[in-house]
């Protein structure tokens, strides 16, 4: 780096070129480059912080929730005694239905006792205590089977029954002999039995499809609870939200940004919309209760109503982001379109809107994520509680019949006493996130297609 040509002498009073080779960075540039490096580092740090928290949260979710996707079952040969189930022996469905689940419980107890003997385990547990290894749903499971096939009565059938949540917890490592010390639901002796049965292949842990497809269960049967029905509820709600809030939000933004005369009234609307974003979601629940249920007489606990409420709640998010991105489209594009004789509407629809699409989709992604995870407004329109128990029959029913939603279901589970519900709550969160990802996938892909610089 020797013979760097120096610039020639300068006439007086004229600022000359700053001396120095390009290969040597001068002090000021060094300082500015350090600032630049810092600035970029802040960006990377910000991104890293975001990612780190995401990783931490996901780890928490996965480590707590993955166990919800497996479930313990017990294989049992149950004698369906005719004298218990059909005293008259005429297989009259009406009479068969009279035998309640309480009538089936002794059969199961008997089967358990026989099974204990068959596997040759020594136990002092009474038959009634034995049945604590099974879910409370066992009797109902059996009853449903018998009512569906009355011809089974009198035979011994092999059924696969859900194990109780404690037994399930034992297989998953949540329950130990020590932790059962003061538990009145299960004893260490039960665990000995389970160990023996596990070796015999009678007790088995498997992937838990019914968690994904099933319905909610009562507080005493966590092992039976599934999120399927609530997922449908969320699906129907999201359909309503998407179908209403996206077009309405975009339309409102277009009007405000492109057509509205700039005056007090539109200012009012503008302020109004940003203000709606700050309204706590539960207040939308109050509104929804008053308007949709009390005034319009839409049914209680219906996903349609939930969807409408969430639509009102997501609108501001979509409108604010859509307006921001409409604003960011350079006016020259509009001029170009108007100049070839496009109407303002055409200019907006054909040119401005596609360019604003990334922002619109971002608003949609954020809005739907918010709507999908919201519980508080659902509380007021009756979608939180023990609701997601019946599958809707058909699409119209799906919108109108009582249902819950995933976040409400998760919230419910998280409140319940049995720790087995805690794992279900986290499992539900996993399902919710997968649902969210699936829902957003299209938006994300579309957004990538629309992104361009000009």
């Amino acid at each position, binding site marked *: 780096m020797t013979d760097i040509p120096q610039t020639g002498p300068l006439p007086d009073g004229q600022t000359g070129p700053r001396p120095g080779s390009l290969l040597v960075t001068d002090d000021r540039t060094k300082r500015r480059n350090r600032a*630049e490096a810092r*600035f970029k580092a802040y*960006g990377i740090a*910000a*991104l890293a*912080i*975001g*990612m780190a*928290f995401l990783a*931490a*949260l*996901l780890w928490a979710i996965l480590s707590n929730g993955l166990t919800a996707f497996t479930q313990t079952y017990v294989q049992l040969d149950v004698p369906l005694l005719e004298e218990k189930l059909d005293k008259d022996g005429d297989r009259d469905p009406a009479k068969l239905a009279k035998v309640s689940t309480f009538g089936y419980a002794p059969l199961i107890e008997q089967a358990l006792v026989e099974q204990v003997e068959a596997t040759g385990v020594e136990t002092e547990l009474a038959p009634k205590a034995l049945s604590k290894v099974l879910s409370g749903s066992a009797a109902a499971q059996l009853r449903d089977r018998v009512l569906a096939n009355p011809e089974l009565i009198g035979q011994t059938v092999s059924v696969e029954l859900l194990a109780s949540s404690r037994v399930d917890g034992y297989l998953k490592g949540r329950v130990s002999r020590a932790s059962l010390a003061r538990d009145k639901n299960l004893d260490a002796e039960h665990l000995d039995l389970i160990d023996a049965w596990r070796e015999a292949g009678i007790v088995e842990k498997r992937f838990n499809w019914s968690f994904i497809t099933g319905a909610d269960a009562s507080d005493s049967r966590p092992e039976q609870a599934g999120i399927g029905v609530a997922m449908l509820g969320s699906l129907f709600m999201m359909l309503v939200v998407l179908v209403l809030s996206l*077009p309405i939000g975009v*339309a*409102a933004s277009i*009007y*405000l940004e492109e057509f509205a005369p700039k005056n007090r009234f539109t*200012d*009012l*609307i*503008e*302020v*109004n919309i940003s*203000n*709606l*974003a*700050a*309204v*706590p*979601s539960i*207040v*939308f629940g*109050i509104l929804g209760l*008053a*308007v949709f249920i009390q005034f319009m007489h839409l049914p209680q606990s219906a996903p349609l109503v939930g969807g409408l409420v969430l639509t*009102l709640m997501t*609108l*501001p998010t979509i*409108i*604010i*982001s859509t307006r*921001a*991105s409409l604003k*960011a489209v350079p006016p*020259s594009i509009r001029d170009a379109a108007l100049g070839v004789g496009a109407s303002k*509407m055409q200019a907006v629809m054909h040119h401005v809107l596609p360019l604003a699409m990334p922002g619109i989709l*971002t608003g949609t*992604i*954020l809005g739907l*994520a*918010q709507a999908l*995870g919201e519980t508080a407004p659902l509380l007021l329109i009756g979608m939180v509680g023990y609701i997601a128990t019946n599958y809707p029959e058909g699409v119209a029913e799906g919108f109108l019949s009582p249902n819950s939603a995933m976040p409400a279901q998760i919230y419910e589970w*998280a409140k319940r006493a049995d720790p087995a519900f805690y794992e279900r709550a986290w499992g539900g969160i996993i399902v*919710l996130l997968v649902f969210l*990802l699936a829902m*957003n996938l299209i938006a*994300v892909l579309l957004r990538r297609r629309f*992104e361009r*610089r*000009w």
Partner: protein
Amino acid sequence: MTPSWIALIVLAIAAAGFVLARSRALRAAAREGRRLHSLPGYYGWTAALYAALPALLLLAIWLVAQPAVTRMMVWPVLEAEASANAVPSLMMADVQRLAAGLDAAVETGRLSREAARDLPAGEMRAAMAAQGVALGSEVTSATRDAALRWRRLAGVGHLARTIAVIGLALAGAAWGVSRAAPDFRARNAVERAMRGTLISAALIAILTTVGIVLALIFNTIEFFRLYPASEFFFGTTWSPSFGGGSELGILPLLWGTLYISLIALLVAVPIGLFAAIYLAEYAHRNVRSWAKPMLEMLAGIPTIVYGLFALLTVGPLLVEAFGRGGYLGLGWMQGGTAVMTAGLVMGIMLVPFVSSLSDDIINAVPQSLRDGSLGLGATRSETIRQVVLPAALPGIVGAILLAASRAIGETMIVVLGAGAAARLSMNPFDAMTTVTAKIVSQLTGDADFSSPEALVAFALGMTLFVITLALNVVALWIVRRYREQYE
């Protein structure tokens, strides 16, 4: 005919109108050898709109108005019998339910048309119960007469409705088709309608606001009747109690709201903005295309997870640092639940609100501006700070407002992270709570709904609404002031 059938028929008429008008316009243009004013589709749409819009509007009005009118015409039947303390609306409600029940019974075939008419009042409650219609009390003969009258009137009304709506649709379609001539400005007509649609969409926001105010205002007034407004607005203690003697000062709650939101924004805005800048300006396309949706997942994680995260992870960590005997030896923090805990975690949740939208807006700033700045020898960061960000300012402010709004509206993180105790304190390591958290808790609590402890939720909601409105006005003013419009 049911309203949905009528609506379907109207839509069918509109579709027919579309086809007819479109082809008529095309034929006319071909015959007269002239160019159409608008694209042919616009003529079709005009006819379709003429057919559908007024008819559907009429239908909507009819649906609302008919019961009101019928009620007015039926009331005289009941009036005679109404005792001094009878509530007209309740009596009418029974009449309506009874009439609806009779309709349903006839429809399902449980009762014949005549039987429905002749059923004695005394048997009606039972008959209705069989039909699954609950009546508040035994049916009196006046109620029965009123219900029968209701049914007659409703029958007439429905017939008139069908005729009027479908007639209007046909007339509209015909009018639309007849206008489909080359010099008719069909595009303008359609665009006027579209514009109307856009305006109505914008008005939904206003309607929502009106709805919210209406939903809150009566109970708010009721609250102020029970509890002095001055103590609510200026009271510095929040301690509701069932036994009466609650102190319901909003100040500690407002303070908590501000404090927590402020900390959340102090976390979310720098992280979000820098992440957005990095993604839009520095990151490789591929990095950006997965990093952005990943960050957006933060917005989709249910807030209960954040709450637990605050309670179980962040709170204890902070206590270890700032608590008594913490390794910083400061002793500022009593327990894990604190403004700081909730603020930090909420800030993380808000990151994507700032980052994603800002990223889109920054990305929309024309490249020529960056070139202009880089060409002068500016570094990238100088370009971003002095040229790109000012140009993107309105959008970024929008994003920040959105984040702030969510911070104000959040409950779960506050309850789990910051606690439920209202307190006026400067220490960010103290437990506090927010207006929103208290709205939820008072609304879902055990206090009697007519007691001030429950009604205060509405007053809180109303106050919060007014305050955020004021903040938004200020924000709008600031944005207007500092906006830099490119090109």
